[in-house]
């Protein structure tokens, strides 16, 4: 600390600043342009400032029922978030004990993470198509399809969010002091009590992080949903469809609204994480200290 920084620091700091500008610059441009005046176009300069394009999005004029897609994506995102948290935490606990097939499950999760999304999406589409054919052949009257937002769509999203959840759980438990659980057991806590009162409070900030990944990855998911969502579209799919016909800044307004939801969720999650960590420091400050 305090020693003079080498010249390479300033060069690298400049590169980093440029990278951040590269990351945020274009996004900020469309946030500004979404407040374009009524006669304004898709590019700068701003032709006045207005909320016209936002009201167009809310009114639904020009853009196909965007409100419904918004709601669908929001609901699906919340369901994916809850399932990702529960399933990842549960599996994370399993990996702390040894069980047959542990490394198989780990490799499957990694494979699911790096599998090109179009292949996963195609596979799920085929699976449900074959299932529909099978049900039709077995003579069910009036059967249309099993494919839908909460069947194939939900599954497609989970193949993307669960690997992240599992990896975060690994990161948590790599740093977790197992003696805390032993101590709880020695004091007579049941398995559930140990989890509820010892393990969960400690890992809670990271669990919120898993929820953050679960929601935002689902909210923005596109490639895996593309073939596997059925007849209705999620918001990113509608947005992608609009890119080919975009002529007015209403697409920017929609983009700004979508991002606002993401930023709100990120902000809430970070606040919750900070509050939880502060609480841990206050209440649990001497936990484990006597043991080291």
């Amino acid at each position, binding site marked *: 600390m305090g020693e003079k920084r080498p010249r390479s620091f300033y060069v690298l700091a400049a590169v980093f600043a440029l*990278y951040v500008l590269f990351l945020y610059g*274009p996004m900020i*441009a469309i946030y500004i342009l979404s407040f374009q005046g009524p006669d304004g176009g898709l590019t700068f300069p701003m032709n006045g400032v207005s909320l016209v394009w936002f009201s167009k999005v809310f009114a639904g004029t020009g853009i196909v029922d965007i409100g419904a897609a918004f709601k669908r994506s929001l609901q699906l995102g919340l369901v994916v978030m809850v399932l990702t948290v529960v399933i990842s935490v*549960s599996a994370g606990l399993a990996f702390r004990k040894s069980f047959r097939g542990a490394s198989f499950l780990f490799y499957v999760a990694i494979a699911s993470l790096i599998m090109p999304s179009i292949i996963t999406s195609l596979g799920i589409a*085929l699976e449900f198509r074959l299932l529909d054919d099978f049900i039709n052949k077995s003579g069910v009257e009036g059967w249309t399809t099993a494919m839908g937002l909460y069947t194939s769509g939900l599954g497609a999203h989970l193949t993307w969010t669960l690997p992240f959840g*599992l990896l975060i759980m690994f990161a948590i438990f790599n740093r977790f002091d197992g003696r805390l659980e032993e101590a709880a057991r020695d004091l007579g806590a049941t398995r559930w009590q140990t989890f509820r009162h010892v393990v969960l409070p400690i890992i809670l900030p990271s669990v919120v992080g898993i929820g953050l990944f679960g929601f935002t990855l689902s909210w923005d998911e596109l490639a895996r949903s593309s073939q596997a969502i059925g007849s209705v579209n999620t918001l990113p799919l509608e947005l992608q469809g609009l890119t080919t016909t975009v002529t007015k800044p209403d697409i920017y307004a929609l983009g700004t609204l979508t991002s606002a939801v993401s930023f709100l969720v990120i902000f809430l999650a970070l606040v919750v994480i900070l509050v939880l960590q502060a609480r841990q420091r206050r209440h649990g400050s001497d936990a484990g200290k006597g043991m080291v």
Partner: protein
Amino acid sequence: MVQDRKSLVAWVQAAPMMLIFAAFFLLPLLFVTIVSAWDYNEYEMIPAFSLRGYTDTFEGCIADLPDLCTILKTYVKTLKLCLLTWSLTLLIGFTVAYFLAFHVRSKTWQIVLTLLCTIPFWTSNVIRMIAWIPLLGRNGLVNKGLVGLGVIERPVEWLLYSEFSVVLALVHLFTFFMVVPIFNSLIRIDKRLIEAAHDAGASGWQTLVNVVIPLAKPGIVIGSIFVVTIVMGDFVTIGVMGGQQIASAGKIIESRLNALQFPAAAANAVILLGITILIIVALTRIVNIRKEL
């Protein structure tokens, strides 16, 4: 007995994840493989063995020699995009990770700056693509700026809906996947090794090449696997940023699907998967990940 109970509990805890992956990942992959060897006509797949999906894909590949047929041209183009994106994300990702790991000294700043790089990852990819339109379009900021400066006489067209914009967007979207694993490798390097290199008379550059980069290899390989698999299978970025005009391995599958030619789409998926696995195997040969972890 206690051990049995314990592993039973572990099984129950792991079961939901296993079931989800079985139902929505492993089984679908199996169906892709099976259906790729089915017959098909204009509107449906026929469950009878046929290699038509594959032969149709490679149609004209021998007859057209020495010219490349459509599928090979597409793969060459996809590999080219992949190579460009990979080298750029690696260069930028390594530099950013190096700065974060070695030059940012306070833990708080490290977290804040890492978060700054992560937040875009939690926002929509489509919007991050659309965001280039006001900058790169015909009347975009870049063209206006260049015309204003007198560098070019009239706006250039190749900035948007071109291979340039595709690579730019891919780098923009996916450098994050390089930064995280490389940062993770760099942060674990014992700082005393670098001091030792310095004391032994190594220059900054020599330390970087002979000490830091070899130790960062696991992170580099993991990041590369992410970027390569994403770009090889990409059809969204190439579609949106290429103005739906550029063919890629992923886009072939998408267009076959839109034509309801499922066996052909599946055959292409199997080919894409095979090539992706080959690249991953080649990458992991460079470094034994399991040993390094």
